[in-house]
C-alpha cells in the first residue's frame, strides 16, 4: 500500500474541512477524487503535507506514519504535488522553476530528469530562459508538472491539472497522466472537476462531499453510478 489515510480530520480555524476521510492508494494506481466546489479535495491533498495538518486520524505513506512530519520533509519521502493554481514561481525562469524541484535530488540524475521533462513538454525547453510568469496558463501547468517530476516522486498529486485549459491541452494532460502511469509506473492521486475525464483515466475513485467520502469504487463503477452521473457528469459542474 502506498498511501493510507485513516479517519483524517482537518480544520481551518473553526471550519471543519475534512470529517474523517479514509483513502487508500495502491502502488501503480491512478486514483481520483471528485466532488463539488468546497468539498475538501484540495484540503485532503494538502493535509498530506500538514497544511493544514490532520487534527485527528492517521496518514501512512510507504509504511511510515507521516501525520506529524514537518511539511518540508514530506517531499523527501517521495510525494510531489502540482497544487491548485499551479503555484509556479513567476519571477524565476522556467529553468530555475525546474531546478526548484531538485532541492534534495541527486545531482547525478539531473541530466536524465530534465531530458525526460523536456521530452514530455518540448515547449519548456524552448522557453527555458523565459520568466515563468510570462508563460501561458497551459504552459504554466506543464511547468508545474515538470517541476514535480524533477524530484522523481513515488506518488504524484495533481490538483485540477486541467483547470482553465483549452481542450487540446486537457487532452494532452490526461494523455501524459496515463503515460506516466503506464510507462514510468508512477502512482497518481488526481483531483478533477472534469469528472468524466478523470474517471476514465483512473483505476479507482472517491466522491467527496462536505469533507466526507460518500462513494468509492472503480472508475467504471463510478462512471456508471446514477448518483455520480446526476451530480458530476450531466451538467452537474
Amino acid at each position, binding site marked *: 500500500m502506498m498511501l493510507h489515510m485513516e479517519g483524517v480530520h482537518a480544520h481551518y480555524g473553526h471550519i471543519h474541512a475534512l470529517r474523517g476521510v479514509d483513502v487508500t492508494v495502491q502502488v501503480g494506481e491512478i486514483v481520483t477524487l471528485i466532488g463539488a466546489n468546497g468539498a475538501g479535495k484540495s484540503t485532503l491533498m494538502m493535509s498530506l*503535507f500538514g497544511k493544514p495538518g490532520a487534527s485527528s486520524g492517521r496518514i501512512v505513506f510507504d509504511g511510515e506514519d507521516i501525520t506529524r512530519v514537518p511539511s518540508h520533509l514530506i517531499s523527501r519521502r517521495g510525494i510531489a504535488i502540482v497544487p491548485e493554481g499551479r503555484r509556479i514561481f513567476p519571477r524565476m525562469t522556467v529553468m530555475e522553476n525546474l531546478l526548484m524541484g531538485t532541492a534534495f535530488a541527486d545531482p547525478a540524475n539531473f541530466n536524465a530528469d530534465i531530458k525526460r521533462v523536456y521530452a514530455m513538454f518540448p515547449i519548456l525547453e524552448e522557453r527555458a530562459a523565459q520568466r515563468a510568469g510570462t508563460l501561458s496558463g497551459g504552459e504554466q501547468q506543464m511547468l508545474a508538472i515538470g517541476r514535480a517530476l524533477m524530484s522523481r516522486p513515488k506518488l504524484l498529486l495533481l490538483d485540477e491539472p486541467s483547470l482553465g485549459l483549452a481542450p487540446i491541452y486537457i487532452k494532452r494532460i490526461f494523455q501524459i497522466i496515463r503515460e506516466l502511469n503506464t510507462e514510468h509506473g508512477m502512482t497518481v492521486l488526481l483531483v478533477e472537476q472534469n469528472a468524466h475525464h478523470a474517471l476514465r483515466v483512473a483505476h479507482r475513485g472517491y466522491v467527496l462531499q462536505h469533507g466526507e467520502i460518500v462513494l468509492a469504487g472503480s472508475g467504471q463503477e463510478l462512471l456508471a453510478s446514477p448518483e455520480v452521473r446526476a451530480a458530476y457528469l450531466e451538467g452537474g459542474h
Partner: protein
Amino acid sequence: MAYALQQLINGLTLGAVYGLIAIGYTMVYGIIGMINFAHGDIFMVSAFIAVTAFTLLAAFDITSLPLAITAVLITAIFFTSAYGWAVERMAYRPLRGSTRLAPLISAIGMSIFLQNMVQLTQGARVKPIPPVLEGGIEIWQSGGFTVQISWTQIMIVLVTIVLMVAFTYLITQTAFGRQQRACEQDSTMTALLGINVDRTISATFMLGAALAAVAGVMVTVYYGVVDFFIGFVAGIKAFTAAVLGGIGSLPGAMLGGLIIGLIEAFWAAYLSPEYKDVATFAILILVLMFRPSGLLGRPEVEKV
C-alpha cells in the same frame, strides 16, 4: 569644482555604507513582508564591537593593518549575525501569522533593549578609537582647495564593490539564492518542494546582519568615533535608501544608498550641515507619497 568633486567622493563613500545596510532591510522585507526595525542597531552593535576589537588589538600592539581589519570584520560579522538570528527567533518567528503590527512592536522592543544595553555597558558618551588607517591620495588641486581621497574611503568603496558582486552571485546563481527567492515568492510552495523555510528566513536575517556588520566596521574606521545612537540615524537613512530604490530590490537598495549618500554630502556642504538629516526624511516622505514602489521596485500587483 574641486569642492564639488570632494563632496562627490564623500557622498559615494557614505552611500556605499547606507547601501550595505539597506540590503538587510530589503531582503528581510522581501522574504517576510515586514521591516526589521532592529536592523539599524545591528549596525551600531557592530560598530561597538569594532571599537572594542580595535582597542584590544592596539593594546596587544598588533599593527599589521590588513590583519587587524580582517580580524575585526570576522568578529563583528560573527556576533552581529548571531544577533540577527536572535532577532528573527525572538521577535519575528513566534509572532508569524499573528497581526502585522505585533512583530514590529517586538522588533522595536529588541531595538530599544539593545540601545540601552550598549548605553549601560559602554556608556552614553562618544567612543573614539585609535586611528586605524590614515592618509590618502591627493588627486587634484585647484583654487587653494585640495581634493583628497583617503585610504579609508578607497577601502570602503572597494569592500562594498566586492561584497556586492559576491552577494549578487549568491542570490542569482546559487541554490541557496534560488531558495531564498522562492521563499519570497511563495513560501508555502517552497516548503512543499522540500525546503526548510524557517531556516532560509534565519539565513536571510543573518546575511543582512553580516552586511550591516561590515558597514559598522567601515564607519568606525572612517569616523573614528561611535555612540549608541548611530544605529537609529543610520538605520533610518538606510531604510529610506531601501524604500527609494524599491523595497525588495537588491540593486535598488544599493542605488538608493548611493543617492541618499550623495544628497546628504551635497546638502551638508552647500545648504546646511545641521539639517542634513531633514533631507533624508523629506525624501522618504516624497517617495512614499509619489512613488511607493521606488525607483527599481515592482508594483505590488502582478499577473500570476
